[in-house]
């Protein structure tokens, strides 16, 4: 087995262990004699929650890896295509502006947020694609994101206290409302991951440059749409189910490139596994540190991820590429 495969298997092992710890707590012996209530907690609350951790963490990290490849920029975050900011803004608007009692109430907040996220991505694309350059999309994304973020801030400023908590849910991320129906929806994510994976050679080619990729026979325009739509759907579903989870999409692909490799054939699956692993750990810690209350998972990922990221930048002489 090659060194790469050893590391991949190691990651899978860690993921399984983290899931078990998150499910059963830190008790050394596996509790086999569960009471009916405990069993219900395990199967109805913890299990779907851990499943969502894995699916959403993996999806976000894969979206990050693909977006970074597409933009040829390791600083690109999947949030840059606008979907998460847009979804959060629309969700906040839905609640604070009282749309939930109006004609749009039937749509439900999740559908409204999802539609908002995709609409925002579309706006970024329409603005960005007016030029041939991929960096125009990046710049358009930064601008649209800033508008969305200030919109969320504005809404939380004018909102009542009770609404504020709910706005915070979207902006900070939480797995508090995890359920099996959520898991069912999140099963779309692995399908999208596989769709992106099927294009791994094209993603490799685009990192060489747009012209270089075209000379390798890659339809850059089509790949752009393909990657952005897949990423937007993955992030959109994630935001609807768990709010914005910061840093996973940026950090995980970096870690994989430094430790396993840049070839998208391994980068995408390894990012999926590591993204899932990180979110399982972050969510577990979020439940633990201020027990019985919970820390929003987005805060944990930023708190843990950002310093670790700084450490990596300091430690590596040439590994971090901008």
């Amino acid at each position, binding site marked *: 087995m090659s060194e790469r495969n050893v590391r991949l298997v190691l990651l899978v092992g860690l993921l399984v262990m983290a899931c078990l710890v998150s499910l059963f707590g830190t008790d050394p012996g596996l509790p086999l004699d569960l009471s009916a209530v405990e069993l219900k907690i395990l199967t109805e609350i913890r299990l779907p929650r851990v499943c969502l951790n894995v699916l959403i963490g993996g999806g976000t990290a894969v979206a990050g890896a693909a977006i970074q490849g597409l933009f*040829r920029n390791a600083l690109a975050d999947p949030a840059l295509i606008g979907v998460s900011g847009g979804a959060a803004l629309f969700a906040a608007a839905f609640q604070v502006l009282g749309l939930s009692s109006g004609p749009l109430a039937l749509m439900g907040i999740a559908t409204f947020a999802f539609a908002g996220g995709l609409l925002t991505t579309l706006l970024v694309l329409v603005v960005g694609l007016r030029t041939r350059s991929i960096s125009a999309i990046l710049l358009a994304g930064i601008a649209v994101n800033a508008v969305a973020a200030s919109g969320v801030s504005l809404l939380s400023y004018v909102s009542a206290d009770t609404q504020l908590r709910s706005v915070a849910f979207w902006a900070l991320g939480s797995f508090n409302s995890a359920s099996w129906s959520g898991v069912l929806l999140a099963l779309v994510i692995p399908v999208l991951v596989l769709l992106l994976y099927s294009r791994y050679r094209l993603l490799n080619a685009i*990192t060489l440059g747009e012209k270089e990729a*075209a000379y*390798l*026979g890659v339809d850059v325009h089509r790949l752009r749409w393909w990657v952005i739509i897949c990423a937007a759907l993955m992030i959109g579903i994630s935001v609807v189910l768990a709010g914005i989870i910061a840093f996973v999409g940026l950090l995980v692909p970096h870690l994989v490139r430094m430790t396993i*490799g*840049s*070839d998208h054939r391994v980068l995408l699956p390894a990012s999926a596994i590591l993204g899932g692993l990180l979110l399982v750990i972050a969510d577990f810690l979020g439940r633990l540190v201020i027990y019985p209350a919970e820390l929003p998972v987005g805060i944990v990922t930023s708190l843990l991820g950002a310093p670790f990221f700084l450490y990596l930048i300091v430690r590596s002489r*040439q590994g971090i*590429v901008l």
Partner: protein
Amino acid sequence: MKIEGEHLSLQSGGKTLLDDVSFCAEPSQLTVIVGPNGAGKSTLLDVISGYRTPDSGMVRWNGTPVQEMSLAERAVRAAILPQNSVLNFPFTVREVIGMGCIPLSPASDTPQLIDAVIQELGLREMADQQFTTLSGGEQQRVQTGRVLTQIWNRQDAILMLDEPVAALDIAFQYQVLGLVRRFVTRGCTGLLILHDMNLVLRYADQVILMAEGSIQSHGPAAEVLTSALFQDIMSVSSTLLQTAQGQQYLVLSPPG
């Protein structure tokens, strides 16, 4: 594969980049485009390769208009390296070379092919190193190897390289151009942009002299490089010297 350009014109941002350019590059010939900065050399390669569509005129590869060929059809017929290709992700050298296999059929995408390219370009010791840690010249050799991989086993391909030896030391300049020469000898159509006129003299069959978006002169290297027009356009005086062994050298000096 024969390349023909007919009356190619291209404007961008109010500037004329190409002005009624017509030329022909034959198989088994190495044609080198020379000219001052901003003459339109790289733009001409963009148009010949089909990457940019001219405002008027037509490019044909073996008689077929290049715009009627799909990107995939072009990629198996032509190896093209643009100027200053930048890759910022830590792929290994082997992985970068392997990207040259993307347009090939899965059957020809083999470790043996990649090994052969690595060997031929003198990249063996750095094959498993990260591309981003290499020097500029080493990166350029890897990129050249990557595009050569595309046509490694073809006899009739097109090879277009934009300043492929700009960052190389002298020994590797000869090695890379010698390799290009071998592709041309076996039937490929070579089209290069070079700035070192002694390399042009040594390797080129045909020289195209460009200035201000149009072709000023097209002919055998020794003729074009010593012409009054060349001296005028490049603002140099050029004299041909010949050693006792028959090797020709071009002595370039400032005018006057």
